[in-house]
């Protein structure tokens, strides 16, 4: 096992690739009672089409999330209950490009880890239990339909992306999930829950060698079928529709603005691209920008306004959202401000200030078990060591930011989704 110290962030990591192919890290937290453990797979809502051992598969929308729900089932056992009696609260989430299972506990870490490893690697799906989940996930879909934030995002993605599968909600639809069967779940599990597609990350005061032994005991016998799934999509950078509107029971118009950016490569270049996107967003409309102050003082935006750079496998975008009586004016101001920044440039002192602020926030963020564990996992799948990030900040220049703004923040690449208040009849 490799032990590495990162002086810039004051952290140590234990890292290993186990014989089964599973990769793992342990971030020690001596003096803390809490232990947090994530077992994640490089598989999310966008990975619906794949080839396994030469056979092609195409799964219904929402399958990754459905699988996440059903994996908690074990023959004749209540997994959540078993965690509970061991003092742990397990949970899971599915994003566009990752599925994570996790627990936190203060005691019985070993037993809890074993239970997590066991249930995630044990597919057990019956006709009855798969059918029953339709009711629960159907309610989850309805809940999201009533939630303006998720409606807004789903609407924007649907309008903006013609090719990339981010154009479909993570949960799928009531129609698509009706097509999910035990066989579909079994195939997807076999394809993506295999040792060399997964990652184990523990934050807490635990013995890294013991974590490795327990994990390998579980993963050693698992098959590693040959699976290929598209990780890139030929998505054009231009948007066809520039604005889309729907109505809901909301108090004020809500908007989300998106600008298509190029997908990020893996490794350090990708992280550099992410930092450029983050800092460009801050320079354009962050709280320290001139535009934010102007829009806030004019009453066009309020504290709900926010945005940044977002990347999912195979796509990236710059986005801004909030409540506003006049979303079109906010959009026009952002476009104009980008042009001004490109023409006038970003000063060195402004750039250094944003860089220092971003780094300080990253360091403070390390106090959170949850955000640190999540980042270690997400960056692992992007083939980057998260704790090396301070050095990457120093490779970015003000010109990188203006070039990004010039390329991305244009009408060609833009789309805006708006939810207007329902008119009272």
């Amino acid at each position: 096992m490799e032990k590495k110290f990162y002086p810039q962030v004051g952290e140590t990591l234990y890292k290993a690739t186990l014989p089964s192919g599973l990769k793992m890290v342990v971030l020690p937290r001596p003096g803390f009672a809490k232990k947090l453990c994530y077992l994640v797979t490089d598989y999310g809502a966008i990975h619906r089409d794949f080839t396994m051992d030469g056979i092609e598969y195409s799964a219904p929308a929402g399958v990754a999330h459905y699988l996440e729900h059903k994996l908690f089932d074990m023959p004749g056992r209540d997994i959540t209950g078993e965690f509970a009696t061991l003092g742990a609260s397990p949970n899971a989430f599915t994003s566009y490009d990752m599925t994570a299972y996790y627990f936190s506990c203060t005691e019985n870490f070993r037993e809890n880890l074993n239970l997590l490893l066991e249930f995630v690697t044990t597919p057990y799906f019956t006709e009855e239990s798969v059918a029953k989940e339709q009711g629960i996930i159907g309610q989850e879909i309805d809940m999201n339909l009533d939630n303006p934030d998720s409606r807004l995002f789903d609407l924007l993605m649907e309008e903006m992306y013609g090719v990339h599968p981010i154009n479909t909600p993570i949960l799928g639809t009531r129609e698509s999930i009706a097509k999910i069967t035990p066989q579909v779940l079994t195939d997807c599990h076999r394809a993506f829950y295999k040792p060399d597609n997964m990652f184990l990350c523990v934050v807490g005061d635990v013995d890294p060698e013991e974590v490795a032994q327990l994990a390998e005991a579980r993963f050693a016998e698992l098959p590693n079928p040959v699976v290929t799934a598209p990780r890139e999509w030929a998505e054009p950078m231009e948007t066809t529709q520039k604005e889309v509107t729907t109505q809901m029971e909301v108090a004020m118009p809500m908007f989300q603005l998106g600008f298509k950016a190029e997908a990020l490569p893996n490794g350090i270049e990708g992280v550099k691209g992410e930092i450029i996107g983050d800092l460009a967003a801050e320079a354009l409309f962050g709280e320290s920008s001139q535009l934010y102050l102007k829009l806030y003082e004019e009453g066009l935006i309020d504290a709900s306004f926010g945005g940044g750079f977002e990347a999912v496998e195979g796509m990236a975008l710059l986005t801004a959202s909030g409540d506003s009586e006049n979303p079109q004016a906010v959009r026009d101001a952002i476009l104009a401000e980008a042009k001004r920044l490109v023409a006038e440039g970003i000063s060195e002192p402004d750039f250094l200030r944003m860089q220092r602020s971003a780094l300080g926030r990253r360091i403070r963020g390390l106090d959170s078990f949850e955000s640190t564990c999540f980042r270690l996992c997400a960056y692992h799948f992007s083939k980057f060591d998260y704790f090396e990030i301070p050095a990457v900040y120093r490779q970015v220049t003000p010109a990188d930011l203006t070039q990004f703004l010039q390329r991305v923040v244009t009408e060609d690449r833009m789309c805006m989704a708006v939810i207007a208040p329902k008119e009272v009849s």
Partner: protein
Amino acid sequence: MIQTIHLLPGVTLRCFPDSRFKQEGLSLQFVRPMCKEEAALNALLPAVLLRGCETAPDLRAITLRLDDLYGAAVGAQLRRVGDYQATGLSCSFMREEYALPGEQVFAPMLRFLEELLFRPVLENGVFCPEYVESEKRNLTAAIAAQRNDKRAYANAQMIKRMCKGDSFGVPRLGEKEDVEAITPESLYTHYRKVLRESPVNLFYVGAADPEKLADLLRPIFEKLERDPITLPDQTAFHDLGGCRETEVMDVAQGKLCMGFTTPVTLRDKDFVAMQLFNTVFGSGMVSKLFMKIREEMSLCYDIHSSYHGSKGIVTVSAGIDCNIDGKVEEEILRQLKACQEGQITETELKAAKEALLNQLRSTHDSPGAIEGYYAVAALSGMQLTPEDYSRAVEKATAEDVANAAKTLQLHTVYFLRGEV
């Protein structure tokens, strides 16, 4: 270990000295009575203070200062605990040892917090009218936007109806018409009153020595003209009768909310049993409500109960199809009855205990959780440390939990549904 230092009459500093974290946190709260007359004023005050101070007179100037302090954060803090409303600011900032050699974070942060709190931008001796008007608009919009989150909205509507005679029924952000009535003059008068008379609670988590911090903070308050008042003790629920109501909106999913009363508040010794009952009944993924109504009957995705210990209120909330509220309500009551009759398995009790113990044992592992636990305990009158609380959880029996359940009385039912 928490260390309490009385800086001056009515000004209390609570410190949790801890060098494990990479950041430090400091919050300052003025404690006010929770009442209709003040709720909007107390909500608006920190928002206006965060618009600018003499040395950083607008939003951008504030952010630039925070950027220079390595991305430090300052935010409004508005907290309702029983009959009290605490309003103020909180900040978190990186520890100096991660800064470039010779650069300071702690001292300038403290100075900045003092300036934001006590040297706001004034015009003609009152708050800047432009800032007040703009934050009034924001607050009104935030109040209106509560409708957007249907679950929170439905819960708030239920609580409002249930607590007609209690401070708990006053919305935390106040009502639209109260916000609209505020002027720069009235807000400034309120601010002066708050500075003069309110009990002040300061909370610090970090590596600094508490006595040294106290010496830095004391002069700030010695400069103020203070005539501190003592707030009345927290009270139990004032009951003006319940009701049953349905509201129709254009929604895909219905939200059923039920409110129960109990004489047990977190100032009683039975409070630990009540907390355990709530966990067995409806909090978390192994509770009776979750296991029965979601897992077994597949009637919902989201269902849970909450215990509002400062008042003695238990609420249940479920997101369900719009035509099955009767069936779900019946099942919720059946599960409550099971608790009251002592039908609590050893596994259920153990799971509930472990969930609470896990939470209590990890309280000291996050700066936010530390502040949350002790600041709320100080306001609510809850006397237990996490360690004492844990011991009481370990000792509690299924009979204690059943006895706690027996004190529950259904009070109010509210259902938000779509057109059927």
